């Protein structure tokens, strides 16, 4: 599509294409229809290991990680030096043997494993997909807003927290009525626009939802594998690389 505003039908088509690819790759997305209607959303759950030195996270007994100093970033957002979590944290929690989806390096074996749930809905008012997500500890305790910030990669945190609009906040899920975190869609058109325009200039079709997801997903720990846009014949099933 050449314009950076999506309509609901286009959203569904993009989702179906994404879904087909997800099935081929074993990436775990599903389509949740609303009461047998055409309306619905994409859903995926995933385990994610978050380094303990990213900020305050609570373990299953409610023990607070000793608050780490905010990761130092210079003006370009580049991390200055490695923190040493072992020096300050009281306990070592569940350690992921292997990074799920190879997302983030586990430092000093101290990290928290969280169960994530991601939903991709369509926003009529913004003409854009919206990412809703929530996270639970393995004991089933849901993450508070403050803790959620600790799960955002430090490289993105600076930009996000400086956003006057609170790019990530809590919101009632429009279809489920439960509290979720969500990525505000008001700026989606802004960062999607140039990319779609460039593709349109070259006559290349773009899957809006896939492109958008590849940008916002990593911010909240959702990996969108490269295989989504590599040719079919060279696709490798993700099942062969998953830890379990």
């Amino acid at each position, binding site marked *: 599509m050449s314009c950076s505003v999506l309509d609901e039908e286009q959203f569904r088509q993009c989702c179906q294409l994404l879904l087909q690819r997800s099935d081929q790759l074993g990436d775990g997305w599903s389509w949740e229809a609303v009461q047998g209607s055409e309306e619905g959303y994409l859903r995926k759950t995933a385990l994610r290991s978050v380094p303990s030195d990213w900020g305050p996270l609570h373990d299953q007994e409610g023990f607070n990680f000793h608050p780490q100093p905010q990761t130092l970033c210079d003006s*370009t957002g580049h991390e200055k030096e490695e923190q040493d979590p072992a020096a300050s944290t009281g306990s070592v929690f569940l350690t992921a043997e292997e990074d799920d989806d190879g997302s983030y390096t586990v430092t000093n074996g101290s990290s928290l494993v969280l169960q994530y749930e991601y939903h991709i809905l369509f926003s009529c008012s913004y003409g854009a997909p919206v990412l809703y997500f929530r996270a639970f500890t393995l004991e089933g305790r849901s993450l508070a807003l403050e803790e959620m910030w600790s799960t955002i990669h430090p*490289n993105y945190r600076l*930009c996000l927290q400086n956003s006057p609009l609170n790019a990530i906040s809590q919101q009632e899920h429009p279809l489920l009525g439960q509290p979720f975190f969500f990525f505000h869609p008001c700026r989606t058109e802004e960062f999607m626009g140039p*990319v779609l325009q460039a593709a349109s200039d070259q006559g290349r079709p773009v899957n809006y939802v896939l492109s958008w997801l*590849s*940008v916002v997903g990593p911010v909240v720990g959702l990996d969108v594998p*490269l295989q989504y846009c590599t040719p079919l014949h060279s696709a490798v099933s993700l099942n062969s690389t998953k830890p379990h």
Partner: protein
Amino acid sequence: MFAAARFEELSETKVQSCQLKMSDNAESPTETQKEELHSPSENSATSEEKKKIDVLLKAVGDTPIMKTKKWAVERGRTVQSLAQFISRFLKLDANEQLFIYVHQSFAPSPDQEVGVLFDCFSSDGKLVLHYCKSQAWG
């Protein structure tokens, strides 16, 4: 597969890619413009990771165009590291987010190694990466 060709210095005229109509207010970095991206010392990097691949950087939207577009980058370098390099090179604000895309308008994961991207998407011995800055998050 691809030939691990030694990167050679290219004149600006050879490097000129398609004309992108956008403002070029990028300032040259104070240090000598290098065509090779030097990673921070990585003693643990394997020799495979140290092999370099040719990357062509193209600006999207009103993102400043880099004066040097063609770079030799170590295979083991991550997308995130490259984005940070470009941000520094262009002297972007801390509030500005830089996104990198492969040609199909797909943003590879920040932890993705450019060597892998090269293997998947290179043509004519080079990997074309599009970069776009945005105040996306507010």
